[in-house]
């Protein structure tokens, strides 16, 4: 075992020295390689993080949301409407919700004003999401005023800044007291934006929806699972576009790697011949070259991946946010919560490190199995 380790150390030593001798070529390769990993990993990390956010958004949302439709458009729930539903088996809880969008002309962005279902916010006080707090320099006990659509100015004190566990959930959120909400939007008393119903058993969600539609023909039940599916398909579609573009890049890289690696220079062929003639086995040569390929691709992979991580989670994925992020208008600046998933990491690793190492080894193997007597005639 120690003998084995000693041998690998010699082979690695030699591989490093050999890589250092072809410095320019290897650095060029390393850069292209790292760039490719960087782009691929950025896409993967970014879409993964977005998906995480979306799941987090939906985790907190109720199983069924009931909207009332008037002339095909979403309208307010009038008083007494909820009572007409009566009791439906499987529904644990139903409650009217109050929320609306507010366009802030100062920040040129939309915010979601909302009354938290379990209250907890004082009158004249608001809790704000981290994005808003950041952009407008808000902190606890700072004051802020919003001009309502009616033209009236409303002043609030910030009671709390919401935690940043998932920015999509809370970034643009402004939580306020019910009375403030109704006054701000001039919401008539007893009216609601929609009704949230919680259904414990996922099997019953569709039944509940059917019964709701029957009981209230002018309503539209929105199921969480359907929203989830829509999100998923949107992400898949966007990711698909990016990946199509990237497969082109991948192909270009494969060609480059193949050309760089397969075109063993006369010098390298000679070197392999010498090694064999002085007593290295074919497998020793292959192992040494495998180490060389692995070390190069591994460092490229790590460099590219770390750069992608920084790009996505510290620089807001600036390079391709326009393609992937449909939220750019809503979220003036939004830091994704870092998330890594072993499978995508493994996939990326497999599709970059493995083909490169293989591409390096094939020509070496071909050179290494030839009889070593050729070196006698160099």
């Amino acid at each position, binding site marked *: 075992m120690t003998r084995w380790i000693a041998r690998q150390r010699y082979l690695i030593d030699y591989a490093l020295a050999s890589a250092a001798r072809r410095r320019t070529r290897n650095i060029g390769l390393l850069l292209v390689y790292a760039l490719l990993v960087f782009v691929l990993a950025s896409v993967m990390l970014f879409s993964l993080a977005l998906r995480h956010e979306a799941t987090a958004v939906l985790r907190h949302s109720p199983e069924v949301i009931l909207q009332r439709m008037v002339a095909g458009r979403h309208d307010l729930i009038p008083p007494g409407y909820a009572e007409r539903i009566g009791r439906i088996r499987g529904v644990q809880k139903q409650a009217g919700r109050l929320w609306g969008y507010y366009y802030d002309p100062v920040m040129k962005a939309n915010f979601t004003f909302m009354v938290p279902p379990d209250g907890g916010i004082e009158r004249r006080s608001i809790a704000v999401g981290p994005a808003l707090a950041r952009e407008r320099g808000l902190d606890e006990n700072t004051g802020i005023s919003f001009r309502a659509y009616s033209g009236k100015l409303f002043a609030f004190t910030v009671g709390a800044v919401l935690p940043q566990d998932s920015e999509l959930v809370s970034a643009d959120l402004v939580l306020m007291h019910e009375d403030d909400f109704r006054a701000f939007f001039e919401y008539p008393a007893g009216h609601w934006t929609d009704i949230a119903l919680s259904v414990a058993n996922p099997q019953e969600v569709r039944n509940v929806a059917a019964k709701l539609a029957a009981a209230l023909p002018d309503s539209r039940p929105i199921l969480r699972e359907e929203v989830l599916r829509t999100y998923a398909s949107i992400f898949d579609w966007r990711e698909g576009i990016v990946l199509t573009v990237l497969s082109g890049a991948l192909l270009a890289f494969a060609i480059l790697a193949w050309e760089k690696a397969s075109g063993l220079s006369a010098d390298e062929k000679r070197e392999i011949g010498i090694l064999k*003639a002085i007593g290295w086995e074919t497998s*020793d040569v292959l192992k040494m070259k495998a180490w060389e390929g692995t070390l190069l691709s591994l460092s490229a992979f790590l460099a590219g991946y770390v750069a992608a991580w920084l790009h996505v989670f510290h620089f807001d994925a600036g390079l391709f946010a326009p393609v992937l992020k449909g939220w750019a208008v809503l979220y003036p600046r939004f830091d994704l919560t870092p998330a890594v998933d072993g499978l995508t990491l493994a996939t990326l690793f497999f599709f970059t490190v493995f083909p490169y190492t293989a591409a390096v080894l094939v020509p070496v193997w071909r050179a290494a199995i030839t009889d070593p007597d050729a070196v006698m005639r160099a």
Partner: protein
Amino acid sequence: MIELRAITKAFNQGQHNEFWALDGIDLTVEARRVTALTGPSGSGKTTLLTVLGCLARPTSGRVSLKGEDISGLPERFLTEIRRRSFGFVFQQFNLIRGLSALENVMLPAYPLGPEFGALRLRAEALLARLHLAHRREARVEWLSGGEQQRVAIARALINDPEVVIADEPTANLDTALSRQFLAILEELSAEGRTVLLTSHDPLVVESTAVHRVVSMRDGRLVAA
């Protein structure tokens, strides 16, 4: 030490440019002696040397080393034999550019995985013995031809082989350096090593350091 029986070697066999470089060679190489192969260019000296040193397989015939038939052994075993029993000094020296003299000398031992400190000491001792201690950290492409050859000799000795094989060892050396090489040759055989070399340099062939001269022509041995 090494016995060849009815050795032939064809290049490009079965093709229009088929060429028989060795054509029925019977030869016994004695242990602890210096044997020189000589003959005109193209007579098959280098080819015979590659067969003797297990660098190439004969097309037909039997090779035995210390009484053991090794012609049928698979590649891996041949490499093993080559590594333990033979040290090569090539005509072009075939050192690996970009590495230091010391690293070049240690190279044949890498696949064996010896303890690094011991290996380094052994390599340093060999270089010192060949008067190259002061050049051990120099990259080999900066060395003179004679120095390069001595590095190549040190490399051939690192695994302590019984047989040292040298192809045209003096072809790239002037008279003074050639004499120096012959002195090394005597040392090697005094240590009990078997030495096989090719040469058409009279200085070598007629030297007292060489115990036996084998002449070749057109792939066959000719009586000296």
